[in-house]
């Protein structure tokens, strides 16, 4: 009886530990700030500029989507082709984002996984060299190589081309290499041996047996890379200036509205532009949140 009382007392004590209360309150405050910020931004995007200026905290008078339609009309970027100015609209920017993030993410996911598989399963000098190259490259910080990269791309005539972007994605020196390496290393080689006995080639074993076994990991890495590239505006700005992505368009919409032919600063419209760019990636996050936030470890996916 006494023991039961003690246990109950202990449980009660655990529930109300100072740590839990303090950190819980800090996390609640943090979440409140984020929810308030995003909620306020969404509501503000539904207001007109005048009403917003007079009271930034008031609720919108109704669901007015004019700012959103205005963004689709006004958010455009120009570049010079020959002697003429070419305008790129938001729908094309979304398409560019999709190509930049989708194709780039696919290429990088495939090559990282493929090289990791080779290194994990075909032991030898080259494999250990490649693995060490990844580790050294990840450890040593290198700063300010963008000008040099631009210089090389200009010289190779790859600047401002999709090819110039995609050849850069045929890389393997990322943290994901180590994750794939551990995942392939943990898979029993007996699957492959059985397939070899049945006459399967090495490429068939890789594509039809090994890749499906790490499918979850492949999807997770692809989603993470897709999100990273979708949000990237600096690299597309530098490397593919005539193929602007949506994130880059948003950057110029905020920082250089005059270049888009707008001479007034319309805050709700700017916020609406932010919401438009935010919605696709937020949807992906909501759908795949368990995969994205799954325990991405060096042993693959846990939990």
């Amino acid at each position, binding site marked *: 009886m006494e023991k039961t009382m003690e246990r109950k007392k202990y449980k009660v004590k655990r529930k109300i530990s100072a740590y839990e209360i303090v950190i819980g309150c*800090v996390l609640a405050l943090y979440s409140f700030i984020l929810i308030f910020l995003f909620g306020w931004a969404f509501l503000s995007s539904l207001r007109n500029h005048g009403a917003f200026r007079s009271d930034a905290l008031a609720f919108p008078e109704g669901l007015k989507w004019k700012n959103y339609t205005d963004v689709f009309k006004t958010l455009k970027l120009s570049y010079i082709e020959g002697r003429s100015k070419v305008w790129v609209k938001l729908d094309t920017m979304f398409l560019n984002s999709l190509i930049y993030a989708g194709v780039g993410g696919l290429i990088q996911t495939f090559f990282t996984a493929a090289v990791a598989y080779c290194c994990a399963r075909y032991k030898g000098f080259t494999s250990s060299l490649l693995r060490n190259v990844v580790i050294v490259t990840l450890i*040593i*910080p290198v700063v300010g190589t963008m000008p040099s990269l631009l210089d090389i791309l200009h010289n190779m005539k790859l600047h401002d081309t999709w090819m110039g972007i995609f050849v850069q994605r045929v890389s393997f020196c990322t943290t994901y290499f180590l994750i794939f390496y551990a995942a392939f290393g943990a898979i029993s080689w007996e699957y492959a041996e059985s397939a070899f006995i049945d006459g399967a080639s090495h490429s068939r074993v890789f594509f039809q047996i090994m890749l499906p076994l790490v499918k979850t990991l492949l999807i997770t890495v692809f989603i993470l890379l897709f999100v990273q590239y979708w949000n990237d505006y600096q690299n597309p700005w530098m490397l593919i200036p005539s193929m602007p992505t949506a994130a880059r368009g948003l950057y110029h919409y*905020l920082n250089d509205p005059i270049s888009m032919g707008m001479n007034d600063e319309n805050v709700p419209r700017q916020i609406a532009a932010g*919401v438009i760019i935010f919605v696709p990636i937020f949807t992906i996050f909501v759908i795949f949140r368990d995969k994205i936030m799954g325990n991405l470890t060096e042993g693959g996916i846990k939990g």
Partner: protein
Amino acid sequence: MAKPNVFAKMKQKGTLFYWAIVILPILNYLVFFIGVNFNSIVLAFKDVYILKGEKHIDWVKFDNFKTILRDSQVLEYLVKNSMMYFAVTVCVIIPLTLLFSYYIFKKYFASGFFKVMIFMPSVICSMVLAIFYLNFTNEILDKIIFKPRIALMKKDEYATAVMIALFIIGGFSSNILLFLNAMSQMSLSVLEAARIDGASEIRTFWSVVLPSIWGTIVEMIVIAMAGIATQQANLQAMFGNEARNKMRTVGYHIFVSIFTDGFESETNYPYCSAFGLLATLVIAPCTLISRYLMRKFGPSEE
């Protein structure tokens, strides 16, 4: 007797498959890592200029480095600000992320919801966060909360505080999963023993959790240190290319130095490369030595 077919032997051993897979990534590494870095070093000692519409390149020895060091006032701001963001990462973001991670690891109240909230900023484009945050600062903090209006973003000291707050808000998400992974690999029996011994939450955290995940903490600090000279701290998203000198970081300064009047210009490449090389020469050894020392003298699981 027929000679053994070398091609067939290679096919059987998987050599052909192996090289078919790795050859392109190796070439990529040679061009886009080795080549780019080598070219960056070479560019640092060159001067590129346009004369009568034609590009000219001269060797200028250490002139680019002298130009960087000559402007000591700007350099001082850049180093000070970059170090400040590093200090915020190490002293505020990493410790708070650790405490948050432990809360989520222990599955306390609403931990699943808080995990999503902490992680969310990492999937949002920094431009989107900047637009929302900048307007929130200008329209609510500045107009409604601080009366009379103090023009937060126009004054360096206030603007820096606003930028640090944004840096902290977006800073937890990148580390949280790594800390949670490290904690999930801790020995549960040690945690259970601490609980049975009546150790408080803080004591368990300090004496059991911290030593168990010290390796991950070291890696986080090393990543932050390696990123000192690349950290742009949302300056590009908030101010475009026009952030004032007093607010600039090394990473931001190098990036915007590529532009002249809003356009990328090849004539600026040597200066940026020299700045990058200088930063790498200082930061790379510091990072490697710190990593070694923290691993050697940090708390042990024993």
